[in-house]
């Protein structure tokens, strides 16, 4: 693993705070707006506040993917990808660096969302459940990071905003981040199961309802991450477009 590369990537993000602010502020605001009015209601085995808190954690994880796609589009625009092909950097390591970067970048939004949940919304969970929920939503960033990689390579730099926006909206909607799964129309429920966001939400929420991770959901999520990551590697290798 190349820690220098990862460190430079983090440095770049810190210098472009817009992306970070977007991915931290948006889920935090949504959490307060949606969560506060019904924070004492219960839902399944948990509170509505806890349910929304986890949804917004996933939302933050998804926006890290948006950040990845955006930064790759910029890198392609300036010919950085061609430059990398003139170095020994192996595509697999490149993709791993990008995915690790997403995992680092998702932490601030998770910390803010879960912090607000525990304080402002008064979410009370056992220590073990907090840890599992946190790990679950953190893991859910994996397939989105890989997805961001693919979008970054497929979308043209000038259309990336729209592609990202649309995908983000669909994934959040189908993943049950805005509307709980059992309140969706039937056809949407069918489609939802074919999205990584549904499984990400399942992984993160299972500890709320059952006190443990749903390992089937974790497997599906990892499957998504591997397939999307593989496509991402192929795109990296294929992309030699001139700046």
């Amino acid at each position, binding site marked *: 693993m*190349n820690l*220098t*590369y990862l460190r*430079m990537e983090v*440095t*770049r993000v810190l*210098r*472009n705070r817009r992306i970070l602010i977007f991915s931290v502020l948006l889920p935090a605001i949504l959490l307060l707006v949606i969560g506060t009015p019904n924070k004492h209601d219960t839902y399944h085995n948990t509170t509505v506040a806890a349910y929304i808190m986890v949804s917004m954690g996933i939302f933050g994880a998804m926006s890290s993917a948006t950040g990845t796609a955006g930064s790759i589009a910029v*890198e392609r625009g*300036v*010919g*950085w990808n*061609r*430059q*990398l*092909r*003139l*170095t*020994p*950097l*192996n595509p697999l390591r490149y993709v791993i660096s990008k995915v690790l970067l997403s995992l680092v970048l998702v932490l601030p939004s998770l910390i803010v969302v879960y912090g607000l949940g525990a304080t402002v919304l008064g979410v009370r969970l056992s220590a073990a459940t907090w840890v599992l929920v946190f790990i679950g939503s953190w893991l859910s960033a994996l397939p989105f990071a890989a997805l961001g990689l693919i979008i970054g390579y497929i979308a043209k730099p000038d259309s990336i905003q729209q592609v990202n926006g649309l995908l983000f909206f669909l994934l959040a909607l189908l993943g049950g981040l805005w509307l709980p799964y059992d309140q969706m129309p039937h056809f949407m429920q069918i489609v939802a199961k074919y999205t990584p966001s549904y499984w990400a939400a399942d992984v993160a929420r299972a500890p709320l309802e059952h006190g443990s991770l749903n390992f089937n959901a974790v497997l599906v999520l990892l499957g998504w991450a591997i397939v999307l990551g593989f496509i991402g590697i192929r795109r990296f290798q294929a992309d*030699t477009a001139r*700046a």
Partner: protein
Amino acid sequence: MTNRATGPAVDLTGLTKRFGELTAVNQVDLRIAAGEVVALLGPNGAGKSTTIDMMLGLTKPDAGRASIYNRQPNEAIIDGKVGAMLQSGGLLPDLTTNEIVTLAASLYRKHRPVPEVLERAGVAEFAKQRVGRLSGGQQQRVRFAMALVNDPDLIVLDEPTTGLDVEARRAFWVAMREETAQGRTVLFATHYLEEADAYADRIVLMRTGQIVADGSPSHIKSLVSGRTIRATLPSADVNVLAGYPGVDSVETRGDSVLLQCSDSDAALRELLTATAAHDIEVVAHGLEDAFIALTTETSTP
């Protein structure tokens, strides 16, 4: 200094690339020995960049083969043998000079100390400034630093001095000279004959995707800097004229003949004694004019 790799640094055979109807590079054969400093000279659109892209494995040739130190280009790159500087782009604007060179260094198993490279490429003074805020000339030097960081045996530079002013251009070549003095092999593309003449041991001249001349700078200059004799000579025998001393090539235009000469005096002596040529003019070309003449496609009437 470490031992430099031996054997042919670059070996291109029958390299061809087409973009639709256009054949950008056509059957290029080129072999560069270790330690040579070679200029790939030609006007814009001659196929220099496409040749370099295929040589580095960035573009797949439609035909032919490129190898570096007897290996696939990407294998030589992975092995850290090659340092390349592309014509434009390839920099991350948010990082400082020091950071981007450190990043480039981190991609290699073995690399030179970053401070040494910053010094050598003349970028140490703005090491802490972000790359996006540097001038074009400064950015060019950052690219140069990145190409040197892995201590490469072969340096490939695509139009390294484009956009530099005279002063920066000179400084760049001074730094380059110090690098080549250590036995590195260098291939640089340029469209300045002066630059090729001053810094290369060997000039490879390209025109419309083909190599049209290959030799020492003095050889190339003799090709392009001769004189042209124009004379009226109806029904001239082109083959006989081409055999005259000092004549490089012959063209006819109606009743006129044009003789491109490396030694116009010798050619003129023969022409006046052996033929009925009259209305003779001898014209000398400026170096750049002649270069343009040689690299511009001539339409045969």
